[in-house]
């Protein structure tokens, strides 16, 4: 179990041989997890809908490699946000026998799992693998704004400006760690930020 009891465990991608449709959402280095997991299941690619955004791995050009494996449908997205828009549209019309997979940074996995939950998919049924940076997605508990790719603590809220301590507490529904004011009791001081989650 993770040291943070509310933090999900990402056991790694494992192909569901019985799935009629593999719905795969990968970000950055998550492409390598997909290539490895599906290397021994050549038939699965013809039943795969693959969404990919290069994210932090743009120079590595995993998208050509993925496309080279000829998934049934391949969607290349410029950002995580655009990938999520497409994923939500696909989940709206997904049918029985669809298996959902997520690979990449934790913020990406979290958003995919939250989208699955919102569509009635049991979170434990989603196959996940963490690849890439340890950056966290954080929600400001005060203004409820989200901040992506957080590597430092405290981090100023991108929305309301409150300097946030990132608590070791994770919400699957919000796909984010909890950010709480670090200087509420010392309003005149803001501790220096440290890089913690690179």
């Amino acid at each position: 179990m993770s040291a943070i009891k509310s933090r999900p465990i990402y056991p790694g991608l494992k192909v569901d041989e019985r799935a009629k449709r593999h719905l795969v959402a990968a970000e950055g280095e998550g492409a390598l997890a997909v290539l490895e997991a599906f290397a021994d299941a050549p038939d699965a690619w013809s039943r795969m809908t693959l969404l990919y955004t290069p994210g932090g791995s743009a120079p590595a050009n995993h998208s050509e490699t993925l496309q080279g494996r000829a998934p049934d449908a391949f969607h290349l997205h410029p950002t995580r946000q655009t990938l999520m828009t497409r994923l939500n549209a696909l989940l709206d019309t997904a049918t029985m026998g669809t298996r959902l997979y997520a690979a990449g940074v934790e913020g990406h996995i979290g958003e995919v799992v939250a989208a699955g939950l919102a569509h009635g998919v049991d979170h434990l049924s989603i196959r996940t693998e963490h690849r890439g940076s340890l950056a966290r997605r954080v929600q400001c508990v005060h203004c409820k704004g989200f901040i992506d790719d957080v590597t430092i603590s405290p981090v100023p809220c991108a929305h309301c400006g409150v300097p946030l301590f990132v608590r070791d507490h994770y919400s699957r529904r919000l796909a984010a760690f909890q950010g709480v004011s670090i200087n509420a009791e010392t309003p005149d001081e803001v501790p220096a930020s440290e890089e913690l989650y690179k």
Partner: protein
Amino acid sequence: MTIQFKTETFRDDFTFSNSPEAIHRFPFPFDKDEYMYAVNIEQHMPGPVKSAFEFPIDIDEHYVSEMKDRALVLKQDPLRCQSLPHMITAEWDLLELLMESMAKNYPEHFTLTRDGDSWHWVNGPLGIDQKFTFGDTSTLPYPPMEYITRQCQGDFNLIDQRNDNLWMDAGIVTTQADWSLDFDIGMNFMEWHAPVPLAHDIGVFDRALKFLLNLQQGRPVRRLNWTMTINPRLDTSPENYHKWGVDRTTVTPENVGNKVHLRVELQALWRLPRSNAIVFSIRAYLIKMEELVTIPKWGRRFHRVLRDLKPELADYKGLTRYRQMTVDYLSKFDDGAPTSPGFFPD
């Protein structure tokens, strides 16, 4: 037994205080001179007359003012009341539990008349007279959980049971000790307790979960929990922490007796009949240090508990900044005499 409801505030000018009767019935949570986490769960049986445990749902002199404070919180932040769609049956179960209990034990203040699904609820202190159809949400001005918990002291959570776990899937939380329903909704038992230090390692949550999964209908249980709060503020939410956190820096040797409050949570759990969900109620009671020491046994004992508290617990409960000043104040009321076993005043 007619309760005299006080007019008082839990914010801004903080006029809240306890009458001598309310002090005497305060649910003091320490049965010995030291404190450590334990699965201190007991049957929620009727306690001594006039105590906070006399009835399953305790209504006291702060009722009307607490309900006004809740309405203010909800107006500012509607996310304090949320319910996932599958919890609607549990919401009706909760409405029945609270209305039945309040009407049975406080007939001077609340009446419930049932004719099949046609119900008639009268809440005297809040001036509410509502006829509605049980099971039909369109006949109430709010969804059932929100409707009844705007009229009942304490925070309430509705907990679903599946996959051998408990899931925090609905609630109304406006008087919390620094946790967020909006953040925790949808979490399981281990997840929502994640930030609590030490207790995971000594197996408290494993044992508590096992116990609660077997909770039987008609056999509610309770436990006491505690923390401390500066000023009689009910809404010590993380959402507003950047506004109230600074209160912790305002304690001085002169005002410690008035500003520092022991905050006790009477937590109770009921299995619900239709939904098989569990109600988890968290009722907060506040008492100023200068009120607490009017019960000599409590002044002595709380001095010893606070003085000897483990630093991790003091940090988690947010006491560190004013703990020593409070210990110094309480030491004047501790003559070193032995204290009798049990919670109640001598």
